[in-house]
C-alpha cells in the first residue's frame, strides 16, 4: 500500500467509526428510559471510545496526506470540507469529556458524516499548489478557520438539541416549521450523497458542447443525467439522454442538475419517512431528548461561541488579511469569500450583543446558534460552488 492509499483508507476507517458510534450514542440515549444516566454513561463510554478511534484515524489521514502532498491538506474543496468534518468531531470529543453528553454525539456525528460524504464527491487526488497558495500562511489561516468553525458548529448542535426538546410539535407554529425545515435540509444532503454515489458507481458520463456566457464554445462533462442542459448544448456522447430543459448561458445547468437530483432524491426519501412513520422527523427525534439538560445546552451554545468567535476573528480575518497582504498586495479586496467571512463574523458579533445586551438566552440563543451554522454551510457550499462560479476570475 502506498502512503496515499493508507491515507484514504484511514479516512474510510474514520467514516465507519463515526457511523457506528452514531448508533451506539443513539442507543445510549434511547436506552436511558428511567433517566438514571447509568446505562447512558456505560454505552456512552463505548460510543466515545469508537469515536476517538475514528478521530485518531481521521488525524492519521490528515497527516499522511500532508506528508504525501508536501503541504497542509487544506487547499481544495475535498480537503477543506473533510477537515471541517474532522474539527466538528474534535469539538464534540472535547465537549464530551467536559460535560458527558451522549445526546450531542447523536447529533454531531451524523452531521460530520454528511459533511465528509459531501466532501468525497469532489475530486480527491492530491493537487499541486498554485503560487499564491505556496506560503505557510495558508496552513495557519485555513487551519484556524476550520477549527473555529468546528467549534462554532457545536453551538448549533447544542442549539438544535435545545430546540428539539422545547419546540412544541403538537401545535402549528413557525418554530415547528423551521425546525422541520432544518431536518429536511439534512435529508436533502443525504439525497445529494445518494444520487452522486449512484451515478458515480454506475459510471454515468455524458459530454456536451455548449456556448458559454462569453459567447465561446466549451465542453462539459455531466456525471448525472441532464435534467437541465447548458446554453445551446449539443451532446457529444452517443445514445445519451437529451436535456429536458435548456437554460440561458448565465446558469450553470450542470450544477443545477446536480442540485435538482439531490432535491428529488432527498424529497422522495423525506416523503417516504413521513409516510412510513406517519410523523415529522422532529417528532421521531423528540422522545430521545427527554433527559436533555436545557441549561447545559444553553451553556454549551454560549461557550462554543465564546471560544469560536475570537478564533474565527483570528483565522478568518486577522490571518486572512496578513496572507492577502503578502500575496495580493492588499489585505482586503471585497471578494465573495472575504465578504462572507465578514458576514459570518458580524453575525456572531450580533449574537453576542443580543445575548449580553438584550438577554437573548435559551431558545432565542439556540436559534441564533443554528443560523450561524447555516451561514457557515452557505459559505462552504453556495459561495464556493455557485457565487464564485458567477465571478469571472473563479
Amino acid at each position, binding site marked *: 500500500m502506498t502512503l*496515499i492509499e493508507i491515507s484514504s483508507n484511514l479516512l474510510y476507517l474514520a467514516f465507519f467509526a463515526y457511523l457506528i458510534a452514531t448508533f451506539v450514542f443513539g442507543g445510549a440515549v434511547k436506552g436511558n428510559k428511567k433517566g438514571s444516566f447509568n446505562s447512558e454513561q456505560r454505552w456512552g463510554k463505548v460510543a466515545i471510545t469508537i469515536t476517538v478511534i475514528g478521530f485518531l484515524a481521521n488525524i492519521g489521514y490528515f497527516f499522511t496526506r500532508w506528508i*504525501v*502532498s*508536501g503541504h497542509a491538506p487544506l487547499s481544495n474543496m475535498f480537503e477543506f470540507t473533510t477537515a471541517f468534518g474532522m474539527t466538528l468531531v474534535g469539538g464534540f470529543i472535547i465537549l464530551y469529556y467536559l460535560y458527558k453528553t451522549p445526546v450531542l454525539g447523536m447529533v454531531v456525528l451524523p452531521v460530520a458524516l454528511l459533511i465528509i460524504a459531501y466532501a468525497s464527491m469532489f*475530486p480527491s*487526488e*492530491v*493537487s*499541486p499548489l*498554485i*503560487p*499564491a497558495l*505556496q*506560503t505557510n500562511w495558508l496552513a495557519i489561516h485555513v487551519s484556524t478557520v476550520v477549527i473555529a468553525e468546528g467549534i462554532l458548529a457545536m453551538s448549533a448542535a447544542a442549539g438544535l438539541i435545545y430546540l428539539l426538546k422545547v419546540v412544541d410539535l403538537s401545535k402549528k407554529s413557525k418554530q415547528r416549521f423551521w425546525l422541520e425545515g432544518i431536518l429536511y435540509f439534512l435529508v436533502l444532503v443525504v439525497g445529494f450523497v445518494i444520487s452522486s454515489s449512484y451515478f458515480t458507481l454506475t459510471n454515468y458520463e455524458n459530454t456536451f458542447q455548449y456556448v458559454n*456566457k462569453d459567447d465561446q464554445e466549451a465542453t462539459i462533462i455531466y456525471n448525472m443525467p441532464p435534467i437541465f442542459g447548458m446554453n445551446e448544448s449539443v451532446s457529444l456522447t452517443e445514445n445519451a439522454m437529451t436535456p429536458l430543459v435548456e437554460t*440561458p448561458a*448565465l446558469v450553470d445547468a450542470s450544477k443545477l442538475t446536480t442540485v435538482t437530483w439531490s432535491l428529488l432524491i432527498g424529497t422522495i426519501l423525506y416523503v417516504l419517512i413521513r409516510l412510513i412513520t406517519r410523523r415529522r422527523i422532529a417528532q421521531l427525534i423528540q422522545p430521545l431528548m427527554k433527559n436533555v439538560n436545557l441549561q447545559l445546552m444553553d*451553556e454549551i451554545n454560549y461557550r462554543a461561541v*465564546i471560544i469560536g*468567535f*475570537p478564533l474565527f*476573528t*483570528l483565522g478568518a*480575518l*486577522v490571518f486572512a*488579511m496578513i496572507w492577502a*497582504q*503578502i*500575496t*495580493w*498586495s*492588499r*489585505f482586503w479586496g*471585497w*471578494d*465573495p469569500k472575504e*465578504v*462572507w467571512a*465578514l*458576514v459570518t463574523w*458580524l*453575525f456572531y*458579533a*450580533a449574537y453576542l*450583543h*443580543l445575548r*449580553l*445586551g*438584550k438577554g437573548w438566552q435559551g431558545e432565542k440563543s439556540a436559534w441564533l446558534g443554528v443560523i450561524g451554522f447555516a451561514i457557515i454551510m452557505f459559505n462552504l457550499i453556495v*459561495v464556493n460552488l455557485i*457565487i464564485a462560479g*458567477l*465571478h*469571472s*476570475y473563479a
Partner: protein
Amino acid sequence: MENVQCQCGHTNPPGTKLCESCGRSLTEKDQNSKLVDMRYEGTARRSQTYNKSIIDKIWNFFSSVKVGVSIIVILLVAAAIGTILPQQAFVPASTEATIQAYYADTYGSVGRVYHALGFHDLYSSFWFIALVGMLAISLVIASLDRFVPLYKSLKNQRVLRHPSFMDKQRIYGSGPGAEDTLEKAETKLKELKYNVRTDKNGLLAEKGRFSRWGPYVNHIGLIIFLFGVMLRMIPGFYIDESLWLREGETRAIPEVPGYYLENKNFKLETYTGEGEDARFEEAIDRVGTVVKNYQTDIVLYQEPEDSLPGATDNLEVIQEYPIRVNQPLKFDGYAVYQMDYKLNELKAMTFALTNKETEESLGELTIDLINPVDTYELEGGSTVELLGYYPDFSGFEDGEPQTATPLPNNPGFLVELTTPETPAGETSFITIQNTVEPLGENQFKLTFQNADTRNVSGLTVRKDSTLPILGIGGLIFMIGVAQGMYFNHRRFWIQQKADGTILLAGHTNKNWFGLKKDLDRVVDSAKLPAYTDQQDEIDKAEKAEKEGEVSS
C-alpha cells in the same frame, strides 16, 4: 432634573437607580422587584436620564444596543447582497457605459436592476460607507455611555450595603453565624485570590474587575482599525500603482521618486507531473497545466542625490532580487509585488522591402515596436518612412487608422516607401495580416520576415503606512475580547448583624456556575449559611404557574 436623595443621606446624580453609597433601590419599580438590575451597577447613564434636546436624542439613539445590532445586521445583509453578482472591479469593462452594458448583457434584467441600485460598486458607495460610519459612532457613544458611570461606581464601591440591596441579589443567603465566621471567610476568599476589603461588620471580596473593561477595550481596537482604514484616503499614506515592465526594460517606479526598476528576466514554471511532481500527476491530467512559479528577476536602482531629476545614466544599483508571488521586493517602506504577466509580447518586427513583381529584396528593416524611429535607410539607397504607428490597430474611423491601446498587440504601420525606381514614394498601410494601398497600386511592398517577442511582467507598487495602525487596532481588539470573555468579575458581600446573623450576597457579570463553585468552598470552610440562586427560584415558579394554567 434633580439629584436623588437616598434614605441613607447620600445624594445621587439624577437617573441613579441604586444608591451609590448603600445600594438601596431608588425607584419605586426597583423597590418592588424581586431582583435588582445590576447591569452597570444601577448608575445613571446619560442615555437613560436625558431625552430633551436633539443632542440627547442622537446620543440615546446611538447608545442603544438595539440600534447597534440593527446596524450590524443591515451591514451584514448588504455586504452579502454585494456578493451575488461580481463587483465592477472584477468585470471586464472600464467605463461607466460599458460597465452598465456588461451587467445588462451578461446578467439580463437581474443585472440591470443590480446596477441601477448601485450594488455593482457597493463597498465604496456612499451609503455603505455611511453605515460603517454609523457603526463607528454607535461604538463610541454606546461605550462612553456605559463605561464612564461604570468606572466611577466600581472605583468608589462601599463595603457595607443596605440589606435591601443584598437580598435582591441573585445569589443570596442569610442565617446564624459564629464569632469567627467573617474572619474565616476572609481567609478563604484570599486563598481563592479575591481582593478583600473589610469595614466594621462586613467585607467585600472582589476578583477580575478588569474583565469588565473588556468590551470597551475591544471597541477601542475596532475604532483604531476603522480610523486606520480612513487614513488611507489622505495622500501619502497609501500608494497603489501598477507597473508593466518588459524584459530588458528599466523604468521609473511610479509614485516612488528616485527609484528605478529593471526587468532582467521573467520566467514562468509549470508543474511537470514528473520526478518531484509525480504525486500530482492525476490532478494535472484532470485540470491541465498548473503554474508552479512565476518570477521577475529585477534590479533596483536609485538616482544619486546630486543627479538631475530624470537622468538615468548614473543610477546606483541598490539590490538584485527575484520577485515572486508571496515574496515581494521591499525597500524604504515600499513593496513591489508580482501580480500578473503577459507572455510573448511583440517586441520588434522585421520586414523586407520587396519588388512585388520580381520578389527581389532591396534590404531589410527592423521596427522596434515600443520606440520606433521615423526613417529607416536601407543599403541600396531606399528609405522607409514611418508616417504613422498604431500599436493596437482596431480599424478605421473616418479614414483614419485607430489604436485601441498603446500596447503592441496588433501593430499597424502607415509607411512611405522610396526606392531609386520610385523616387516620388509609395504609401502603404501594413498590419500583421494584410497590406492596404490607399493611394493606388504600388510597385513595392514590405514583406513580413519575423518578429521578436519578450515577456512582460505585471507588478504592483504598494505603500501602506496604515498597516501598523491596523495591526495595533486588531491586537487591542483581540486583547479586549479575551479580557472580557475569558475572565469574569465576581463579588461577594458578607455582613454580620449585631445579633450574629450573617447576610451573604454574590454577583458576577457572567459564568454563574464558576461563581457558585467559589462560593461553595467559602461556605464550607467558614460555615456560612446556605444560599440560593434566586433566579432559579423565579424560573421554577414561573414554570409551575404555566403548567398550572395548562392543567386547569
